[in-house]
């Protein structure tokens, strides 16, 4: 479940050069941009039926924050 989420997140952000971990601040990734943000939002919606407002998204910082938000819906 957790690994699947990490894989989906990597694919959404086109990350292939490095691994990602739950404790990472995803905005620190080199790949992070306004476009990858849109890809992540789309992935959360499609794969997890999870929708989130931008103002709420801003409160999420780590990969774990994202994961927990999705799982607490």
């Amino acid at each position, binding site marked *: 479940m957790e690994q699947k989420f990490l894989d989906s997140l990597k694919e959404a952000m*086109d990350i292939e*050069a490095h691994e990602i971990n739950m404790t990472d601040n995803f905005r620190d990734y080199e790949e992070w941009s306004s476009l990858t943000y849109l890809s992540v939002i789309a992935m959360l919606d499609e794969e997890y039926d999870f929708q989130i407002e931008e103002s709420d998204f801003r409160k999420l910082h780590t990969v774990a924050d994202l994961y927990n938000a999705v799982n607490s819906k």
Partner: protein
Amino acid sequence: MNPFDLSGKVICITGASSGIGRQCAISCSQFGATVVLLARNEERLAETLSLMEHSQKHIAFSVDLTDYEKVSQVVKDAVAKVGRMNGILHSAGISTTLPLKLVTPDKLEVFFQSNVFSAYNLTREICKMGNFSKDGGSIVFFSSVMGKTGASGKSLYSMTKGALLAGARSLACELAPKKIRVNTVSPGVVITPINCNLPHISDLERRKITEQQHLLGLGETTDIANACIYLLSDAAKWVTGIDLCVDGGYTAR
């Protein structure tokens, strides 16, 4: 060292079974590339392969580019066989001369699917994680002088070619962080096996008019292929988001 060398690069070429696409496949093979050829007609694909240098190192897939699911599988298969892509040359496309009242919604659909949606979809598939080289590369769409100038009966064709021009510029912005360059080539009228039977070339009177529209006369397929070699090669490593007019001077006036 030859700056136009394509050795070690994997280039995907569509429309490779005839005309300009076929010449591009031959030229890319001569400059050292490994070519993934895509086109509908299997026999003519095999014929193109036989005309290429080192024909055994290239691979051909018979595919309809508007069959999006199949394209996705073909891209995966190609990468598994010859490795990640370094470039795309999208030369597949259809052309027509039709007056406004004959351009029906059905026609619009068919032309946009063949000329625009298929180019975009193929690019999308090849740019998916794991398919494009991590070192980046070069994508070339075929626009046309009709994408930026007008002529009666060319609105449908022009719209599709203009769409490719416009799309390429924004893709250039979006893919630059991945070191993928995106450009278009806009040919003028080039003599190919298909169009040499069409009225604007086969009819001597009409041919003369067509020739006069081009300062340097009509083009050959190698004129276009050479421009593509440039854009695909590292010689153009600082070139993205441009439209390279190879039109014998058609747009000069």
